[in-house]
């Protein structure tokens, strides 16, 4: 029962974050929202009793992909300036 309520709450949060990532004007805000999607998706995987998937999602979805996106944005900014 309590897991269902938490899972619904987190899923609605994931939807809000994904919509923010699509409709945001700024590139930086979009990348941070995508990182937040990975963050909450990892907690949802944890509620579905899959710790290994949750650990991978936390490492790749939230950490590594944000860092790589920022690296690429920085490269593009240097080339344009």
């Amino acid at each position, binding site marked *: 029962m309590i897991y269902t309520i938490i899972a619904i709450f987190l899923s609605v949060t994931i939807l809000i974050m994904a919509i923010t990532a699509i409709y945001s*004007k*700024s590139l*930086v*805000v979009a990348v941070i929202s995508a990182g937040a999607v990975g963050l909450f998706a990892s907690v949802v995987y944890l509620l579905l009793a899959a710790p290994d998937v949750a650990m991978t999602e936390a490492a790749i979805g939230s950490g590594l992909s944000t860092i790589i996106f920022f690296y690429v944005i920085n490269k593009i*900014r240097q080339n*344009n*300036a």
Partner: protein
Amino acid sequence: MEYIEIIGAVVTLIGTIFLFLGSLGLIRMPDVFNRIQTGTKATTLGTMLTLLGIGLIHLDWAGKIIVLIIFVLVTNPVSSHVLARAAHYIGIPLTSKTVVDKMAQKPAITVKKGDKLKEED
């Protein structure tokens, strides 16, 4: 035996109340630096107390709980310090209640064209 679990649960409840107050401060404060102040202090102690309560309920998990508490205690101030310095560097304005700003003597930096970092939307 029974008492220590109830003490742990109460400690967890106090920690979550501090987390809630930190988020409330994040909504109510007028500018970036005051938000960092309330946010980082309240969440550091709140997370430490929450994990400590869980550790009192399950006494055999003590090792990982101790590592997590020390980790939160060390990394949380560092990230708030770095964010505050970056916010002052790119020229986020301070609130109108500010009394004194000793860091303003530095030459203002120039934000490159195409970077809308200060105020978007």
